């Protein structure tokens, strides 16, 4: 895959932990990349290596023309620096009123973010992260602790991101944004499945609904709920 412009290159990257090992090779260009894998397959490890927060045992990670980077950790608490919800929004350089009204947390503006429920905190954190235009945005399990409506809202926001590289690590099986590329971690390796719709054929651990649609000869154009609905309604 020859890519010009902004890119993240994994050159035979390897990670080891005791008897467990993991390797990855690939180029991530602008657009939304979905990286799937079972729990414990190495998604978070890869996310950290991509961001340069974890050194690889061998190989190299190169970020070309990437001037701003953000990793959204699985635990949103790690990102908190404000003592109130209002201050937390400000610490991201954002207008609190705009952010809080978009996630219906306006009434809790004076509350300590650490006293929010995990779901509320995740909503707040993702709203702040997604409001900023990072060149490289790595999201580690952004859908955990979110209900279906919130997942859908996050997916819509992700689908509409037009610039930068966005890498979405998840083991979600139901709700996805419209993605540009699908990657999969299995057998201790990162595999490139391809871009939808062709890439769906190579996706070994595709969610049951997508597999059923493909088996019925109704391959969806992409993996967002709208695309799946459209494919399901095909005659």
């Amino acid at each position: 895959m020859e890519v010009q412009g902004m890119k993240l290159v994994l050159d035979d990257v390897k990670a080891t932990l005791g008897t467990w090992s993991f390797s990855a090779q690939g180029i991530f260009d602008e657009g939304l990349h979905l990286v799937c894998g079972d729990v414990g397959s190495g998604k978070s490890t890869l996310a950290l290596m991509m961001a340069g927060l974890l050194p690889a045992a061998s190989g190299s990670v190169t970020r070309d023309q990437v001037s701003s980077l953000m990793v959204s950790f699985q635990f949103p608490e790690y990102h908190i620096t404000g003592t109130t919800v209002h201050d937390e929004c400000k610490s991201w350089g954002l207008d609190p009123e705009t952010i809080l009204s978009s996630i219906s947390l306006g009434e809790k503006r004076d509350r300590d973010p650490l006293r929010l429920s995990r779901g509320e905190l995740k909503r707040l954190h993702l709203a702040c992260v997604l409001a900023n235009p990072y060149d490289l945005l790595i999201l580690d399990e952004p859908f955990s602790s979110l209900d279906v409506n919130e997942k859908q809202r996050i997916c819509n926001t992700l689908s509409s991101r037009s610039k930068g590289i966005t890498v979405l690590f998840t083991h979600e099986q139901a709700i996805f944004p419209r993605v540009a590329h699908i990657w999969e971690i299995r057998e201790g390796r990162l595999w490139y499945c391809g871009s939808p719709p062709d890439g769906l054929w190579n996706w070994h651990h595709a969610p049951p609904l997508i597999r059923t649609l493909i088996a019925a000869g109704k391959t969806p154009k992409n993996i967002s709920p709208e695309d799946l609905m459209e494919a399901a309604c095909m005659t």
Partner: protein
Amino acid sequence: MHDIRLRTGAATLLSLVAFLSIPGAIAAFIWWLLFTPNLHLIRKNRLVLPSVILIGFFSVILEITGGGGVSYFFRMMVVILIGVWLLAGQKRGEFLNLGCWLFGNRTGFELGMLAEMALQNLNTLTTDFDRIRAAERMKGVRSGVRSIIPVGRVLVHGTLMRAEDTAELLAIRGYVHGGTCIPVFARKKGDLVAVFFAICAAVIAVLFC
């Protein structure tokens, strides 16, 4: 030293003699140099430097206010080095074995489990600290005293939440008091020699006091 009973015994004895007097600290330090992979331990443990800074700070205050700061610094440093050695060789379940061997399956199990949990939490705290600092850097927060406050807040909050979760989990699983554990200890050739010299160091320290 593989046997946790000998390791803890030697560490306790050497820490005591090191803390009590300068000759004791010298003897314990020489023992540490001879019987542990000394410099390798320091390089591997990330808590050594913050501990040195913290003790250095209090030693300076002590020296300025009433004297004895230098002595305190040296003695405490040796205690820390012994502690680093004790924890560096720690394996999962060792303190549970030690607790049960010392005080039985009721009180010993409780104490051993507490020690295991505390050590597990120490490792988690180090990982959490790294993640929080990385998150701060990405957010553009400059390093300094002001950046430490949110780190402390999140660490304390996380620790309390984990403690609550663990307590609930134990209660749900029907834990009331004590448990059953058959302690197993491994011993390496040379363990007894190291312990013998630890006792010698302690005796020499007492004689020179």
